[in-house]
């Protein structure tokens, strides 16, 4: 999952070389910050699963993600 301004056009080609290296598919989900917070607030099925499951932050932290998910609730 990628949250921010990145696009599939930027991410997919970069992941392609990693997929070749590790011989495993990587299926990215790319959200803008706004869409992520809205979907988190609406108990979106997929986002809820991600937030409720084990996570490995590659950039940022799990706390940042939880804070972002709670932003729209706090607003």
């Amino acid at each position, binding site marked *: 999952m990628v949250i921010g301004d990145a696009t*599939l056009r930027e991410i*997919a080609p970069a*992941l*392609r070389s990693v997929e070749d290296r590790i011989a495993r598919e990587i*299926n990215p989900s*790319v959200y803008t910050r706004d*869409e992520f917070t809205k979907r988190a607030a609406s108990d979106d099925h*997929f986002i809820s699963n991600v937030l409720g499951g084990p996570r490995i932050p590659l950039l940022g932290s799990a706390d940042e993600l939880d804070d972002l998910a709670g932003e729209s609730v706090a607003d």
Partner: protein
Amino acid sequence: MSLTTWRESRWLTEHESSLQEAADLLAVVDRDLADAEVEGLSADRRLEIAYNAALQLSILALAAAWYRAARDKAHAYSIRSLGHTVGVEPAIVDTLDAVRRKRHQVNCERAGTASHSEAEEVRELASDLRERVFEWLRAEHPELLGGFTEGTVRINVLGDSGEE
């Protein structure tokens, strides 16, 4: 690897394209590009529809080159053939291939993994691809664009104004 090599590997079969096939596929593309903008649809569905527009464009370009993808992994080979037919850059092909897998995921495995920003990006990609396929057809296979009657498919197909 060329398309000839693909055919020898049985990833493609030979196919006789026609004006009618081109018109039919382009009608699907234009319908899907319009439907992908419909408000109120889920992001999953919008992405799936926009992807289909790109897929049909790849099938059209392949058909213009007198090929069709064999049954096994037909979508994958159709999308990947865009580099050989229209000359689409590897980065765009990789992106469309990632969308192909995502489309399978949202359709068959897990709801909600597509975002609206992704769906919009795929719609834009498909729209750009339509222009590129058209330019390529005009240059390489104009016979597949000729002969449409005015006021019907030709206006849709050529993307021109209603002046035609």
